[in-house]
């Protein structure tokens, strides 16, 4: 993590027994790992678990003290493969990523791991990116747990429960020789709360010991006949051991209520939502006291049949609150009840929607529908706004999807692509995962979607025939190192692909928070950086490579793209467009600039601007830029109808608007102003001389011509 310091968070990791830890959910998990004597931690960054990785990356000192190894994986697959150490040695290991996308990537390693089984506790922390604010397809990680027999924890969303789940996870893993997934929803990762800390623990078996004690265990190998034995072992030994551990240690919780003939079974992560809904219906209070009995599944896989049967038996109706689809839990519980001959009716999807996030409103409506079964339905409340007011409101409020930041170096790339296409015609463009995917939204509307991280180039590989126009594939530097070098570039070389691949190099894994990667330019004491993408691309055999080191130069970039699209040369054409992520650049430079200003050092502050009397308000610049700081201003001029362009104070002087106005031949309204703070004598003299001269000419004209003072 180059440009952002997590020193404050690192201090939290040092809390001693009895001290109060106050912070975010995902940081509580990080601290809990150290309290559990974890031996190594790995993962691949992504919301909502980036913080875990970022903080550990900055916590070198603490980790060294404890003898804990931390590693950022090349991908989720390499992170999952790390857990192999826990297969062979009694060392606790934890890995983390964004799910389900990361679990998709990791599933090969995970399947191998869970088939062979583990000796030391193996914990997979999945940040479930589901519902509002999610940036991925809406799926569940639950199916991965079921298919590989990995146990799944879904704790109640408060810090003490989350911390306990980490401890339970390691213990359960060791008791059943099975890896365990800890599922945390996005809001749970970011929930702010507190818990009482314990001391950090050194691992009982060190990595050094492991290196000096090579292990060979044929029974762990995934080959026949061992693979068949492993399957039997899973079902006959590990599964019952897990159920036994869960039951004995009461990992699932029962909350009693006086309405004993009904009940709600819920995923632990749904607990706060369910209590809130019940409270709004007058059936619970803010302290968690409830009239409806609750069976809270802090372990959602495997289920404990006895507990399910005991909870449901004799009830007139039971509700299953299970977010996401398909309804794995509801189906499983139906099976359990049927096998046990329990007749209590089970409701779930139906009263609650099959798909989509279980928001406060959804839960309240769903539980109300369940409560009303057999009674009379509740009347919906009348709307607050009249039809007219509500219609006007809906017409006024514009959609506001995320987009490129102010000064983003990727914006000019898509301006150039727009201009190149204006000249050469539209092309089929396949995209990738990363900030650059914002190109698919207005104002650029470029691209035909994405097939996954690093797969931008691979997703155009079928369109490789000797006829028609070249396609363009986009790939970020993050995706490039994740797998794109082989799946995209190498693949294109091998298959003699004739299309264009545009690699966006912004020096970081920017979309996930600005982490360093192989090609980052920053000096990183702990990692080896500055390995150019160009070398790697040439290394796998690409002959036609162009690197543009200043993406803001829209003119040059447009020319390079046009060349790539039209050159007679065969084989993949790779354009590398490189400029530093502005968010991270500003993080580094802003404090320096502020300090320089305060210290009285000569410094130049740049800003872009628009001459409001030259701008005609057609907004062509905005349609080709979309920069948040390039906005509009309504003039107090009776002769002007439309708002004119205006650069607000958030401008970081990347220069894109001026470049575009030039490259697209838009208008002469843009200017750049460089203000010299703490000027030196030369500045002062030069400025004074120039101003005297300019003023003389201006005065001369003022004497001859009537001018309007606006």
């Amino acid at each position, binding site marked *: 993590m180059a440009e952002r310091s997590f020193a404050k968070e690192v201090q939290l990791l040092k809390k001693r027994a009895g001290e109060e830890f106050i912070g975010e959910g995902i940081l509580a998990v990080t601290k809990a790992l150290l309290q559990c004597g974890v031996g190594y931690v790995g993962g691949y960054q992504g919301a909502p678990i980036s913080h875990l990785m970022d903080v550990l990356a900055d916590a070198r000192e603490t980790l060294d003290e404890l003898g804990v190894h931390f590693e950022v994986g090349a991908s989720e697959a390499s992170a999952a493969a790390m857990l192999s150490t826990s297969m062979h040695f009694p060392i606790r290991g934890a890995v983390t990523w964004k799910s389900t996308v990361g679990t998709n990537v990791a599933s090969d390693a995970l399947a191998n791991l869970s088939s062979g089984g583990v000796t030391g506790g193996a914990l997979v922390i999945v940040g479930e990116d589901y519902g509002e604010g999610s940036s991925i397809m809406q799926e569940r990680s639950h199916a991965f747990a079921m298919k590989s027999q990995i146990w799944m924890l879904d704790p109640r969303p*408060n810090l003490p429960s989350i911390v306990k789940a980490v401890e339970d996870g390691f213990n359960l893993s060791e008791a059943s020789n099975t890896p365990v997934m800890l599922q945390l929803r996005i*809001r749970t990762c970011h929930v702010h709360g507190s818990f009482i800390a314990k001391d950090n623990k050194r691992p009982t078996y060190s990595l050094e010991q492991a290196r000096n004690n090579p292990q060979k265990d044929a029974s762990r190998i995934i080959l026949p006949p061992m693979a068949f034995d492993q399957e039997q072992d899973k079902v006959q030994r590990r599964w019952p051991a897990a159920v036994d551990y869960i039951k004995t240690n009461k990992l699932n919780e029962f909350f009693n209520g006086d309405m004993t003939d009904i009940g709600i079974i819920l995923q632990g992560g749904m607990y706060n939502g369910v209590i809130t809904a019940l409270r709004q219906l007058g059936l619970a209070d803010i302290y968690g006291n409830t009239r409806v009995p609750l069976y809270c599944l802090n372990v959602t896989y495997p289920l404990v049949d006895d507990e399910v049967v005991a909870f449901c038996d004799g009830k007139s109706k039971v509700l299953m609150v299970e977010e996401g689809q398909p309804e794995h839990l509801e189906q499983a519980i139906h099976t359990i009840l049927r096998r046990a001959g329990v007749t209590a009716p089970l409701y779930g999807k139906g009263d609650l929607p099959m798909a989509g996030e279980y928001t406060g409103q959804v839960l309240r409506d769903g539980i109300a529908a369940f409560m009303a079964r057999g009674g009379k339905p509740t009347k919906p409340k009348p709307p607050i706004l009249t039809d007219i007011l509500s219609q006007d409101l809906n017409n006024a409020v514009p959609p506001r999807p995320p987009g490129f930041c102010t000064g983003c170096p990727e914006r000019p790339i898509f301006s150039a692509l727009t201009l190149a296409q204006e000249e050469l015609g539209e092309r089929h463009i396949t995209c990738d995962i990363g900030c650059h995917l914002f190109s698919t939204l207005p104002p650029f509307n470029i691209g035909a979607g994405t097939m996954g991280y690093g797969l931008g180039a691979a997703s155009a590989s079928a369109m490789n025939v000797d006829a028609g126009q070249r396609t363009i594939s986009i790939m970020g530097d993050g995706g490039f190192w994740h797998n794109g070098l082989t799946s995209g570039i190498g693949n294109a070389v091998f298959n003699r692909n004739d299309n264009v691949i545009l690699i966006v190099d912004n020096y970081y894994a920017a979309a996930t928070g600005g982490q360093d990667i192989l090609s980052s330019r920053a000096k990183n004491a702990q990692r080896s950086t500055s390995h150019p993408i160009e070398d790697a691309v040439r290394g796998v055999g690409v002959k036609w490579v162009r690197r543009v080191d200043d993406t803001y130069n829209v003119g040059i970039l447009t020319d390079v793209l046009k060349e790539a699209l039209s050159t007679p040369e065969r084989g993949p054409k790779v354009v590398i467009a490189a400029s530093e992520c502005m968010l991270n650049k500003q993080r580094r430079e802003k404090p320096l600039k502020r300090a320089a200003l305060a210290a009285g050092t000569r410094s130049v502050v740049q800003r872009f601007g628009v001459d409001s009397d030259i701008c005609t308000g057609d907004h062509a610049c905005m349609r080709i830029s979309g920069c948040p700081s390039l906005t509009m201003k309504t003039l107090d001029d009776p002769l002007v*109808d439309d708002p004119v362009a205006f650069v607000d104070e958030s401008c970081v002087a990347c220069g894109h608007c001026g470049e575009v106005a030039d490259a697209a031949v838009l208008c002469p309204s843009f200017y750049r102003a460089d203000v010299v703070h703490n000027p030196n004598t030369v500045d002062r003299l030069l400025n004074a001389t120039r101003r005297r001269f300019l003023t003389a000419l201006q005065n001369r004209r003022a004497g001859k011509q009537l001018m309007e003072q606006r």
Partner: protein
Amino acid sequence: MNSLSKDTPLAIAIHAIGGQGGGVVSSWLVALAQAQGWVVQATSVPGVAQRTGATIYYLEMMPAGAASPVMALMPSPGQVDLVVAAEWMEAGRAIQRGFVSPDRTTLIGSTHRGYSVMEKSVPGNGISDAGAIEAAALASAKRFLRADLGTIASLHNSVISASLLGAIAASNALPFPRQAFEDVIKQAGIGVQASLAAFGAAHDLFTDSDQPDVEKASIPASEMTGGTIPQQQEFAAMQKWIKDEFPIAVQAMASAGLKRVVDFQDVTYGREYLDHLAQFLVLETGTDAKLTTAMAKYLAGAMAYHDTIRVADLKTRATRFDRVRAEVGANDTQALTLTEFMHPRVEEMQGLLPRFLGRFADSGFMRWMLSLFSGGKRIRTDTLRGFLTLYLLSSLRPWRRSLRRHSAEMDSLERWLTLVKETAKTDCGLAVEIAKCRRLVKGYGDTHARSQSKYIKVIGSLKLLKHRDDAADWLKRLRTAALADADGVALDGALATVNSFATGVKNG
């Protein structure tokens, strides 16, 4: 069972645009609640989804007691006590989502705008209706506080989080004293003085009213300065002409137009403007002088077109340098360098050639010559050389009337004037709409060409429309459609409709 507690936490939703500082407000409120001995839970949905998009921070808080509360992780419709919107449309979004309810919600909205890409992409005026938010807020909030907290913040060199916190303190939605809020800012330790100033200013705004009326400073009409005594006298005479001969309804616009064209060329040009304008007075059919008012506005725009001389002139003015200094926050003594981004095309250069060159100006040789002077240029107008380049260009002004661009503009102007006049004889309402279509012509280079083709398309529909009673209405619709998007999709759709009813053929 009657032992359920009635205690309820305070629910707070902060609606913001990613990168605006909603997270800062949230963390201040967390610190505030904790300092007051309350239990607080805050959540958000950060990540890439938040970057410059709409986002919500949600908090619940209550006094600490023996038992720990179970709080929600997201707001529910009808269950929020305080909604804080860091931008005006986001206030609308909060209402849309049902978080603002008349029985319990205090709504604090900053009226400043961060325009969405959708609004900015419209070639005309795509700005959303702010009044719709105000009306919905008044109808749905229990208490509604609004002010331009964005401007308050920048006036005090701070960011909106500080002024929002001031408004929250002023609303009394949280039972904490002002001092407690200020302590939180002080403890945060970053930009404390500026934050406190913005906090205080925002807080004090709401002393008398929840929706303080902002005195909108009446914008004084522009003034003419400089020039020779005869020029000034002639200008005064023309002003008098407007006052004596034009209806009151037209006077302000005519005066504004006159100033613009005199500023563009000279007093003689101003006289031409008024001569043109006067001809429309006799064509008015109503009493409100609608046609002349519209012509006063758009004739000025058409006559004061944006040619190279005009741009060079505007870029080199003393007032322009003052405006730039004010905009970038540079004081009078600070050294300022100014780089202009210009890209004259051969066409613009041809416009500067004298009319007598005729077809020779279009010859390959001439175009080649001119291409040497065209293309992307960065001109430093703070330096003697750069300034002189533009200053000399703008000195061509006295010869403008003899240049190619001017004659082309005048031909187009003449056609438009004739069309408006001819139409006014039979349908004054339609003539007003034709006058207003001049608004479509704008931009430079290709954009200008595109806008002109839209104008021609709209005006071209007149042959189908002019005998209809609702012709004015249709022309207005076409004009609105032309301004709705850049590619002319809306316009083509509207034109297809016009074609279908005019020719009786249903057009796909």
